[in-house]
C-alpha cells in the first residue's frame, strides 16, 4: 500500500495543467501564506511554546517575523525574478535573442526539521511557491504541536491541488523518498542528508541539503570580554542551543578564557536571571532522547557554569565547559544544546589549524578588535557562512545566500536565492533564418582555406571564433 502515490499523481497532474505558471496564481498563494501567519499567530506561538518553550520574542524574531519578511520580499519581487534574464552575447550572436528562462522544476519535496519548525518549513515553501512548483511538505514529527497546525490549518490557505502535507517518521519518509521528485529540499543532520541524497540519486533529482556541523567560535586575546560574552551567550543559548548556526564551541587562549568565564556568567545571569529554569526567555530541549544525549555531554571536561538539568522539564541550564579534550563526545558531535565547551589554543595559527582539521561547518565566528585577525580567520578557513564579531546575524540578510559547504551542506536559499534554487535555469537562444551566408562558413566540405581563415581570426583574437 503506497499512501503517497495518489497525492503525488494529483500534484503532478496539477503541475502539468500549468496552473502554477502565472504570476497571479503564485502571488495569490504567497498572500494566503501571509494570511495564514497573521490569522494564526497566536496559535503558532502557543505551539512553539509547547514544542520548544519558545518565548514570544524568539518566536517573533526567528520564526514568524522572518517568514513574513520572506513572503513580503517574494511578493514585491516576484515578477522581476520571473523575468527572462538577458545575457551578454558574443559577436556571432549579436542579432539573436539570448536569455535564461526561469522555470519551475515541477514537484518539489520539502523536508523540514523541528528546531525552527515555522521558519524552516515556510521559508523554503515561499521559494518553491514563488518559483511556480507544486509542493509536498513533510514537517518534522518531533515538533508535534507545530506539525499539527501545518497539517490541519495551513492547507486551508493554499490551493490543495498543488500543495500537500504528508506526515510520518523515518519509515514514512523513506517510503516517500522512493518516489520521484523534481527537487528535494532537506534541512537536518548530515547523516540523514546522505540518505536523502542517495534516494535522490536514483531519480537524478537535484537537492539542496541544509545540514550541520560544529561551528567554531574563535575569540582573540584582543577583545572586550563582556561584549564578546554577551554576543556568544545570546547566540549560543537562543532556542536552548538548538540552532544549526549557533556557535558550537569556543577557541581561545587560557588567558582569554579566564576573562571570558566571569563575563559569560554575567551575561547568562543578565539574560536568564539567577534561576534560568524559571526564565520565560529560555527554551527547552525538544525531546527526551535529545535531553538524555545532552545530559551525557555534561560529563565532558569540567562544568564551570550551569550544569543543572531537570528531566521532567527537559531543561538544561546554560552551561559552559572547560578542560575539554578533542576526543570527548562534546567535541565529536554537533552539540545542538545549551552547552558551550571552551577549547584552549595558544595562537591564531593553532586555532586555524584546529578548525581546518575538521569538517567544514555551517557557520564560523571570529571575535577580535583587530580587523586583520578577523579577515585572516576568514581567509584561511572555509564554512557555509561567516560572521566577524557577532553570531548568526548574517542569516538575517536575505541578500546573503544561506547554506553549507562540504559536510554542512550543498546549495543555498533565502530571498532571491530561494527563487533561483527552486527554478531550472534554461538557456535560450532565438535566432532567425537570416545571416545564412555567415553561418555557411561552418558547413562541410571543409577547405584548408576556411581553416586558415579561422586560424587567422583566432590569432588576431579580434572576434569570437565560434562562428556559428
Amino acid at each position: 500500500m503506497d499512501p503517497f502515490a495518489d497525492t503525488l499523481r494529483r500534484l503532478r497532474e496539477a503541475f502539468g495543467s500549468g496552473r502554477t505558471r502565472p504570476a497571479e496564481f503564485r502571488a495569490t498563494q504567497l498572500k494566503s501564506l501571509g494570511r495564514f501567519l497573521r490569522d494564526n499567530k497566536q496559535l503558532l506561538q502557543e505551539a512553539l511554546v509547547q514544542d520548544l518553550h519558545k518565548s514570544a520574542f524568539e518566536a517573533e524574531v526567528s520564526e514568524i517575523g522572518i517568514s513574513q519578511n520572506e513572503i513580503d520580499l517574494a511578493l514585491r519581487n516576484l515578477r522581476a525574478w520571473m523575468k527572462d534574464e538577458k545575457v551578454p552575447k558574443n559577436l556571432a550572436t549579436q542579432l539573436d535573442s539570448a536569455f535564461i528562462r526561469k522555470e519551475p522544476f515541477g514537484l518539489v519535496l520539502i523536508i523540514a526539521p523541528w528546531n525552527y519548525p515555522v521558519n524552516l518549513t515556510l521559508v523554503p515553501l515561499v521559494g518553491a511557491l514563488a518559483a511556480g512548483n507544486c509542493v509536498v511538505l513533510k514537517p518534522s514529527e518531533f515538533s508535534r504541536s507545530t506539525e499539527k497546525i501545518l497539517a490541519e490549518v495551513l492547507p486551508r490557505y493554499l490551493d490543495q491541488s498543488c500543495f500537500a502535507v504528508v506526515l510520518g517518521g523515518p519509515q514514512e519518509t523513506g517510503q516517500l523518498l522512493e518516489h520521484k521528485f523534481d527537487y528535494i529540499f532537506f534541512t537536518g543532520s548530515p547523516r540523514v542528508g546522505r540518505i536523502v541524497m542517495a534516494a535522490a540519486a536514483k531519480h537524478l533529482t537535484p537537492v539542496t541539503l541544509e545540514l550541520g556541523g560544529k561551528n567554531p567560535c574563535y575569540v582573540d586575546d584582543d577583545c572586550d570580554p563582556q561584549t564578546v560574552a554577551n554576543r556568544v551567550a545570546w547566540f549560543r543559548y537562543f532556542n536552548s542551543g538548538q540552532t544549526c548556526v549557533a556557535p558550537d564551541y569556543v577557541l581561545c587562549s587560557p588567558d582569554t578564557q579566564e576573562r571570558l568565564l566571569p563575563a559569560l556568567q554575567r551575561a547568562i545571569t543578565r539574560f536568564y536571571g539567577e534561576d534560568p529554569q524559571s526564565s520565560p526567555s529560555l527554551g527547552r530541549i525538544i525531546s527526551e532522547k535529545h535531553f538524555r544525549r545532552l545530559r551525557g555531554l555534561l560529563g565532558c571536561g569540567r562544568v564551570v557554569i550551569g550544569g543543572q538539568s531537570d528531566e521532567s522539564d527537559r531543561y538544561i541550564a546554560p552551561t559552559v565547559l572547560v578542560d575539554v579534550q578533542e576526543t570527548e563526545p562534546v567535541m565529536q558531535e554537533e552539540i545542538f544544546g545549551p552547552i558551550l565547551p571552551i577549547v584552549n589554543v595558544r595562537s591564531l595559527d593553532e586555532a586555524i589549524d584546529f578548525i581546518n582539521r575538521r569538517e567544514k561547518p555551517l557557520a564560523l565566528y571570529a571575535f577580535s578588535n583587530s580587523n586583520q585577525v578577523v579577515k585572516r580567520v576568514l581567509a584561511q578557513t572555509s564554512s557555509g557562512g561567516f560572521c566577524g564579531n557577532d553570531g548568526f546575524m548574517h542569516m538575517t540578510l536575505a541578500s546573503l545566500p544561506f547554506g553549507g559547504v562540504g559536510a554542512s551542506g550543498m546549495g543555498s536559499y533565502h530571498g532571491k536565492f530561494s527563487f533561483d534554487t527552486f527554478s531550472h535555469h534554461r538557456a535560450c537562444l532565438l535566432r532567425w533564418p537570416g545571416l545564412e551566408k555567415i553561418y555557411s562558413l561552418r558547413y562541410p566540405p571543409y577547405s584548408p582555406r576556411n581553416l586558415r581563415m579561422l586560424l587567422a581570426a583566432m590569432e588576431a583574437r579580434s572576434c569570437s571564433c565560434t562562428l556559428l
Partner: protein
Amino acid sequence: MSKFSEVVQRARAAFNSGKTRPLQFRIQQLEALRRMIKDHEKDIVGALTADLHKNEWNAYYEEVVYVLEEIEYMIKKLPEWAMDEPVEKTSQTQQDECYIHSEPLGVVLIIGTWSYPFTITIQPVVGAIAAGNAVVIKPSELSENMANLLATMIPQYLDRDLYPVIDGGVPETTEVLKERFDHILYTGNTAVGKIIMTAAAKHLTPVTLGLGGKNPCFVDKDCDLDIACRRIAWGKFMNSGQTCAAPDYILCDPSIQNQIVEKLKKSLKEFYGEDAKKSRDYGRIINSQHFQRVMGLMEGQKVAYGGTGDAATRYIAPTILIDVDPQSQVMQEEIFGPVMPIVCVRSLEEAIQFISQREKPLALYVFSLNDKVIKKMIAETSSGGVTANDVVVHTSVHSLPYGGVGNSGVGSYHGKKSFETFSHRRSCLVRPLLNDESLKARYPPSLAKMTRH
C-alpha cells in the same frame, strides 16, 4: 587503499598548501594550458582523427576553439569574478561589511566522455582551475588516443600534484569514486550518472551531471525549409551524430515530411558528397559496440536515405528514417549516431504533448518563422536549453549555462557558471566589536519588550 588514494591525497595536500589561492597562480596555469594546446595542435588533431575520424577542421572548430575561448574568457574575467561581492544591507547592518566571498571547494573530479574527448574533458577543467581548485582529470578510456595524449601532455605543462590525469575504465572509475571529492562533474549517460550521484552521496559531494536524452526538433509548416534542413543536417550529422546536444529526432506535419527528407538529402550531399564514406569531413562511430547498437536501431524502419554501414571502418551512412513509430526502439533511447527519425504529428499541440510526455531532454529545437509558435513551444515544454531556428549553438554562448534538467542532468557550467559551480559562495558579515549599547534591545529578558498583537 587504491593507487588513486595517493594521487587524490597529493592533490589535497597541494590544495591545502594554499598555492592555488593567488589569482596569479591560477592564471599562470591557464596560460600554460593555452600554451600546451598551441604547442600540441598536431597531436590533438592526431588523437581526434585516430579516435573519431575527425579532421583538422573538426578538431579546431568543434573542439579546440571552445577550450581556447573558455581560457581567454576565464583569464579576462577572473579578477572580477573572484572579488568579494557586496550585497544590500538591512537597517540593522548599515555599519557592517556584508558580502559574498567566493572560495575554491578543494579537490574536484572531472570525468570526461569520448564524443568530444578534448573539449568535454578540458573545458570544465578550465573553470575548476580558475576557481582555485585542485582537479583530478579522468578522460574517457573509449577515446583511447586522447586519453593517452592528455596523460602525457598535461603533466608537462600543469602542476603535477594539483592536476593529475588518471586513466582506466569502469573498474578504475569505481575505485576513484570511493575517494572523497569536493565536487564531481561527470559527462555521460543517465545510468552512470545515477551511479556517480549515489557514490557522491556517501561523502555529501555536490555533483554536476551532463547527461543525455532525446533532443526533439520540431519543424513548423511555416518555416524556411531550405535553411532549417541545412542547419539541422549540420548539427545532427557532425561527429557522425555523436553529440549530446544534437537534434535526436524530427517532429513535423506529414505534409512536409517529404520536403524535409529531400532538403536534408540535398544538404547532406553538399556537405559529404554522394558517398559520405569518402568524405574527409564525415566521422566514424567510436567503437564496435556502439556501431552495432546504432545499426540495430534502423531495423524494421522505413529508410528514406542511407541505412548502410561498414563494421570494419565503423562507418554508418547519414540515414533518414520516415513515418517512424514512437513505440519503436529508435524512439526509446538516445540515438547518438547518424540516424534521423522523422515522427509525424498533426499540430503544434500534438508536438508539445509528445515532448512533454517524455523525459526532459538536454536540448530542444524549434524551427518556425512564427514567433508565437516558438514562444508556445518553449513555454509549454522543458529542457536543459533551447535554440530556435538553429541547432546546438546555444551551447557555444559563454554567458548561457550549459546543463540538463531531470534525466538530462543536474547543474550546469560554461563561463561564469563554471566559476560558480566550482566555487563556494560564502556569506560574510563583519561588524566592529564596539560596545553593546546599540544591540542591547535584542537581549533577554524580553517579556517587557513583547507587545501583544
